[in-house]
């Protein structure tokens, strides 16, 4: 599956010119000495286990301790106290709620708009490649640059967004203090999320649209289907797997929203726009409470895992029922 993609754009014709599968000539896959594959794999595996595997275990360990940053002071084992503390911490719940609000405001819009523009850009049109590049530029730009840029656009006095709303559209007669209140702040952060992630959804969905067989559209046309029917009965089922993949990754991304909040509102005013990662990061690196920070990170990771699993399970089963 991945192999066909790597070679670029020759997508739907792939079945004819399919890359050959490697012959599984058993003998030649066996290394001449047992250590040969390990010698090749070692640098990568060591780096990976040192910086991801080991820290994951270590993170769990730290979360059970009142961890001391100073080497001279001993850390004390406190069991699940960090976890119960998080579940009883109103600021933690505020941050989780904010991530949920961010998710609901940004993810459906990002995926829907990504799909819309993917469908529009699928067929030939003048400037197609240029448009695809323009939509993708926010994706490759650093979060720091785009977050500060949006902070600037959402400035209360004479900011571009307030100019657009008050002077251009005349929707409001006073400047909205976007980043100085909870809900408007979350709206601004969500708009940045949509703007930055839309291009990624577009490119992934565009690639999968190319894989929907032309003959299916032709068959639907013979049955007298209009454009909307084709979209619902041919396109959507054809890209279902990719759509689910995009949705799950966007949901995970929404729970991991971080640099944009840090740089646009820094969780303020008074912690009202804090999200789980900004709160966790501050606990760990401003208050040096590593144990508490790790516990929150673990709760978030478990939660993300369950949500992703449920999405695959729920949406995956639904598709079986539809068949």
């Amino acid at each position, binding site marked *: *599956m991945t*192999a066909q*993609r790597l070679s*670029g754009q020759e997508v739907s014709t792939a079945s004819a010119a399919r890359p*050959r599968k*490697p012959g599984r*000539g058993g003998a*030649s*896959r066996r*290394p*001449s000495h047992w250590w*040969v*594959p390990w010698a*090749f*794999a070692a*640098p*990568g*595996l060591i*780096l*990976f286990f040192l*910086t*991801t595997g080991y*820290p*994951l275990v*270590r*993170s769990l360990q*730290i979360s059970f301790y009142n961890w001391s940053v100073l080497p001279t002071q001993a850390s004390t084992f406190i069991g699940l106290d960090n976890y119960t503390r998080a579940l009883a911490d109103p600021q933690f719940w505020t941050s989780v709620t904010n991530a949920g609000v961010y998710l609901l405001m940004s993810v459906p819009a990002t995926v829907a708009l990504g799909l819309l*523009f993917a469908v*529009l850009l699928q067929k030939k*049109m003048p400037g197609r490649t240029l*448009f695809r*590049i*323009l*939509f*993708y*530029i926010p994706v*490759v730009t*650093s*979060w720091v*640059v785009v977050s*500060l840029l949006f*902070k*600037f656009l959402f400035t209360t*006095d004479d*900011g571009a967004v307030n*100019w657009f709303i008050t*002077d251009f559209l005349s929707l409001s007669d006073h400047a909205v203090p976007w980043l100085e209140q909870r809900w408007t702040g979350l709206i601004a952060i969500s708009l940045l999320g949509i703007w930055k992630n839309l291009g990624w959804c577009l490119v*992934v969905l565009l*690639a*999968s649209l190319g894989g929907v067989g032309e003959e299916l559209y032709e068959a639907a046309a013979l049955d007298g289907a209009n454009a909307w029917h084709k979209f619902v009965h041919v396109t959507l089922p054809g890209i279902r797997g990719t759509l689910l993949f995009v949705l799950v990754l966007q949901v995970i991304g929404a729970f991991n929203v*971080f640099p944009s909040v840090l*740089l646009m509102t820094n969780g303020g005013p008074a912690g009202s726009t804090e999200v789980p990662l900004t709160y*966790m990061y501050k606990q760990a*690196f401003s208050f040096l409470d590593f144990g508490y*920070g*790790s516990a929150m*990170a673990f709760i*978030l*990771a478990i939660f*993300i895992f369950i949500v992703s699993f449920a999405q695959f399970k729920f949406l995956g089963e639904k598709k079986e029922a539809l068949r």
Partner: protein
Amino acid sequence: MTATSFKPKSLPEADKATRNERSKRPFNVWLLVRVAIVVCGAVLMVAPFMIMVSASLEPNTAILPNPPHFLPQTLTSANYEEAWTENNFAGFFGNSAYVSVLTTVASVVISSMTAFAFARFDFPLKNFMFSLLLAGLMIPGIVVIVPQFVLAKSLNMLDSLEGLVFFYTAGQIAFTTFLLRAFFERVPRELDEAMTVDGAGILRKFLVLYIPLARPALATAAVFSFLGAWDEYVWALTVISDATKRTLPLGIAAFQGEHSTAWGLVFAASTLAVIPVIAVYVAGQKHLIAGITTGAVK
């Protein structure tokens, strides 16, 4: 274009021709609507960048222009000069380039070796190890940021650009290995066996056969590693405190924090940070898209 030569003939009779003409006309309206919507979307994508570049090219003022300038009204390079010289963005740019280039080289070299081992050989624990790598792709980096910080401290890698390279490279390994393995597996077995007949050892096969054939995938891995390192902020924020060791994202964010109204300078530095990204993106567009859609599209 065929429609114009076709139209006059079809006008009088032939039921078939009329149907043809009818199906042509809505298509053209539809194309116009499509282009119009896409242009609107593209304008919304680009407008913020136009405001950014305009502000960077205009004299710095405390009061923002109202209405906002999408194109600069007066041109000056003062913000760029000041950012580059007085505020040490030349240094930050150099740090970012150093870290990103080293990360790119290291992650491509190391992951091509790892991917080769997984693609070319059968060995004990192979599938288990590969599942762990894939699982590593799913773990959000931030979950392990606390123990990674503890680790970096014990490895003496705080406040060090090489330390950044080490952790950035490690962070790319799972993805680039996954990407390259798929490519190495497609190298025809016959070529490998032909080299065996010629008496070539495994290292020679790797360097002379597999690596050259995998060039497109290596380019994909390189583009991803470079952009990942160039744009990264959170880890750099966590481990770098020496102001001379800042990378561009760190320098820009810190500068904005200290001079909250010097937007012209912030955006001059931001524009300088974005230019290499766009250059790498446009040059490696095909490879980047190949990487993004790997695994996503069945």
